[in-house]
């Protein structure tokens, strides 16, 4: 008799536990909320800027060759930059170190966000190690893609590529380091991508 009662009690306990498990499952609905509707970026600038450099030399893009990046969305945005070789490249991008000679048939690229002022241009020395473009997206900051040591012209908040208010423009300049030597043609192909994301 006692054994039957124990089994019955155990059965009730199991049933109660199962019922509790069912009731403890959530009935919360799926909810999808668009907190920011769009991310939106525009560029305008010279389409014919040429950079030519001696083998093993460096050259910064000219002042009038700046790229103007417009934050054309409705919210503050951060910009990330990356480079990749273009179709049928004669050289490949070199990202190992930001100093020293660039190996044969390779090139190195830097980028900085910089104030635009007709009185000066970006010198090759203004590009620092943390301004080196690589194959991975790097988000702009007060250090990355900004001359944090020598920038005398304006605060990083006004010219940097992060937390850029809607409707604001920023100026982007590049430095090209030529290969130390080449085995083929003296030109190559590559693409720099400027990507906008809403500031987290």
């Amino acid at each position: 008799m006692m054994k039957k009662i124990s089994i019955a009690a155990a059965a009730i306990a199991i049933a109660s536990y199962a019922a509790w498990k069912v009731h403890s499952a959530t009935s919360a609905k799926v909810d999808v909320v668009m907190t920011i509707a769009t991310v939106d970026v525009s560029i305008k600038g010279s389409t014919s800027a040429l950079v030519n450099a001696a083998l093993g030399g460096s050259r910064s893009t000219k002042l009038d060759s700046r790229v103007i990046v417009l934050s054309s969305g409705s919210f503050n945005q951060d910009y990330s930059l990356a480079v990749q070789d273009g179709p049928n490249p004669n050289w490949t991008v070199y990202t190992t170190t930001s100093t020293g000679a660039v190996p044969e048939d390779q090139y190195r690229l830097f980028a900085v966000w910089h104030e635009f002022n007709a009185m000066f241009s970006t010198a090759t020395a203004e590009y620092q190690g943390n301004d080196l473009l690589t194959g991975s997206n790097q988000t702009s900051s007060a250090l990355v893609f900004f001359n944090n040591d020598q920038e005398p012209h304006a605060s990083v908040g006004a010219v940097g590529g992060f937390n850029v208010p809607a409707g604001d423009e920023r100026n982007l300049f590049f430095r090209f380091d030529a290969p130390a030597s080449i085995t083929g043609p003296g030109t190559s192909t590559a693409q720099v991508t400027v990507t906008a994301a809403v500031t987290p």
Partner: protein
Amino acid sequence: MKVLMSFALICFTTAGWAQERLASTMGEVLLRNLQPGQTYKLTSLLKVPLRVTYEGENPMTILIDPVPPGTGEMKEGYEAIPSTGWIALEPGRFEVGGSSVVESNVSITLPDDDSILGKKYAVYLWSRTMGQGKGFSLGLGVKSRLLITVAGERALPSQGEMSSYMDFRLDPGSIQIDGAGPGKWVKLRKEIGRNLTVHNMGGRDMEFVVTQVPGSSLDMTPPSGTEWGPDGAEFKVSPVKMKIGAGKSNDLKVSMRIPDEERHYGKRYHYLLRVTPEGTGMTSGILFRVTVNTVPKP
């Protein structure tokens, strides 16, 4: 010997000044209470795909891929999605001859694993252009941020059909009010000099409800440099409920008042209004964001 890099920053094929633009819907989207083991097809759930707009004159390849957050792209409280394989984009590659709008269907499939219950994951949908010119070219990219919150518990077995709507737009999506005085009513339309409008861009008539929501209810953080507005703020919205025909628009009248207390002077507050369409078995909405700079203390 000199080497020449045809360093055309926009493209090499044309000279002079040009402009290109890339934009994507879904700047940031919260997906809440998702269940392990389920697949969520956003286009069928929300009646709208991811839309990417390219404006320019050049032939382009547009690629869209899911990518984990990079350095500087993490969202507080979220971790990087363990596998971008949870996200599918169909299609993810487009060839366009110039200005175009392309559409992709986004699906999210969560693994059937209790260990992800209650977790919060961030993932980006990276849309970008690939030029077809020679030499150096400059490509554009935009990243849509998806913030996924897995439900804390398994769902009841019978959830039924889920359906809602997101083929509508708020114009403008965010505004800033300067010089608001605590205790004084502010008419948003008057302050910004334009109407606040809900555009129903889809193919069906739809009913919408407008409510003020605290950011904490969506587990959000206020934008940098702002704080959530105090609870005692009052909002008057007219109409609160509206039916908007397919392809039609409706203007909103919104007034607000911050409590007349000394601590609200010289503040930068952020408020959220949520526009919620009808839904079955799920809810959806788009936020209208209001940043208010109050006057300095007299």
